[in-house]
């Protein structure tokens, strides 16, 4: 029972991690919380579903389409909703409000395009279930785990080793310094927002697979969970986002498994509040606030 729930929790948590990573990356370079991230995630889920239903390209195709959609939405958001504000050097609250506007717009657009009803994901993978010493793990779970962990590992490596990845890290640490080192920070910001949104879109497909139901309002709940993980892990900390997501997933599943299912969100968020009492800077956060716009 315990290990079974652990597997379920980690599977769910890995999708949370993926979503939280999107928040973290954008927070890093822009110092804002992207309130539209949940809606980009939801859009990714719907586009993935549409592609899977109508274009018979399998899971990989659906995932790629969802990530591409996320990237395009991210690009549009940066160019239309964030950059104009940055140029005028308005208060940091303005871009936050701006992303809330984007989120409302995207949700309405999704209602219009896809309808208000929950839709179920087509069976894009086999429903086979494996039994590992009493712990049941389904093919879908394996796929979700493999994709989200794979994406996170690649991202981690990419940020650590490549020139572009290092440029993103430098920009998120101090944008003026990055600029002085000859980094085109404008380009890095666009790239980061697109990358974060692509991860969000991809997570949409994975969550769609996990819950087998997607609807236009799912962005809000998911968005809040991602946000909670961002804070739990420590603002702008990549490792924190990954671990925090897994923790939240496990906490949720366990609260369901041990009989308090109607309080699953309350239990999970209650834990976050508790943890923040003990470590206000988050699990992996540093004491002093760094990073700039």
């Amino acid at each position: 029972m315990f290990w079974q729930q652990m597997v379920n929790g980690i599977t769910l948590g890995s999708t949370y991690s993926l979503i939280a990573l999107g928040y973290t990356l954008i927070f890093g370079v822009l110092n804002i919380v992207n309130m539209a991230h949940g809606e980009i995630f939801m859009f990714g889920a719907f586009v993935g579903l549409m592609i899977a239903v109508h274009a018979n390209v399998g899971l990989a195709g659906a995932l790629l389409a969802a990530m591409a959609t996320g990237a395009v939405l991210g690009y549009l958001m940066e160019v239309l909703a964030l950059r104009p504000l940055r140029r005028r050097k308005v208060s940091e609250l303005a871009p936050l409000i701006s992303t809330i506007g984007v989120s409302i717009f995207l949700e309405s657009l999704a209602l219009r395009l896809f309808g208000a009803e929950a839709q179920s994901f087509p069976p894009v993978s086999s429903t086979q279930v494996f039994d590992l010493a009493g712990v049941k793990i389904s093919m879908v779970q394996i796929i979700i785990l493999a994709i989200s962990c794979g994406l996170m590992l690649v991202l981690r490596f990419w940020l650590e080793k490549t020139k572009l990845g290092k440029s993103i890290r430098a920009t998120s640490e101090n944008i003026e310094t990055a600029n002085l080192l000859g980094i085109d920070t404008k380009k890095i910001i666009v790239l980061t927002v697109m990358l974060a949104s692509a991860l969000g879109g991809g997570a949409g497909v994975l969550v769609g697979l996990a819950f087998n139901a997607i609807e236009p309002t799912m962005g809000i709940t998911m968005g809040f969970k991602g946000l909670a993980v961002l804070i739990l892990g420590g603002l702008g900390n990549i490792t924190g986002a990954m671990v925090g997501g897994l923790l939240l997933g496990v906490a949720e599943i366990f609260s369901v498994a041990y009989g308090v299912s109607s309080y699953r969100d309350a239990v999970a968020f209650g834990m976050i509040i508790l943890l923040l009492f003990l470590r206000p800077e988050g699990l992996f956060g540093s004491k002093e606030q760094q990073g700039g716009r």
Partner: protein
Amino acid sequence: MLKIEQLAAGYGNIQALKNIDLAVPAGKIVSLIGANGAGKTTTMKAIMGIIKPTSGRVLFKDQDVSRMPTHKIVNGGISLVPEGRSILARMTVLENLEMGACQRRDNEVQSDLKRIFARFPILEERKAQLGGTLSGGQQQMLAIGRALMARPEVLLLDEPSMGLAPLVVADIFKVIQEINQAGMTVLLVEQNVRQALKIAHHAYVLETGRIVLSGAAAEIANNPRVMEAYLGGKKAV
């Protein structure tokens, strides 16, 4: 090499620079001295395009760079070691140096890295350490090394001695002199006027946004007004 003509710049309604003129000839060290708030850092930021001048020009090799984005100016051959060093604290020493060369497309980065390590052996020893764990003097050396990794033709240094112990300050000035002797053109902003004038060829004195005095460094050092205001009395030097 670098020439500033009638440059004015400011923040909002505050005019920090009022039409200053300044020239940095190739191969020389030029010191820009002045009190707090005189506009020294603003001059540096305006040269780098971090703040856009309201009027005037910045000529680098006879080309106006005053409206260019910062990263293009760096690409063109001007590097700034900013005030307070601005080390990337969460990246390693090696990564900091690599980021200095991030806009270069040639394949001599590795050999330049070796040269930097030869000049600053402490950086090689600590290359796997996070930048934030270095001492102030080591961070200053890292900041200078990082700026050199961009292969600039002009090196701007903003208060390199700030917050450092006297012995370390002497080290830093020695390094600046050595870099200059190796052919680098240097524009140095300093509050440590005595040291700055000792290694400089030319000097400019900035007061509340205006150049009030300029000339050969030795002359400036013997100017009674400078001696009184910056060198602590008439008998100094």
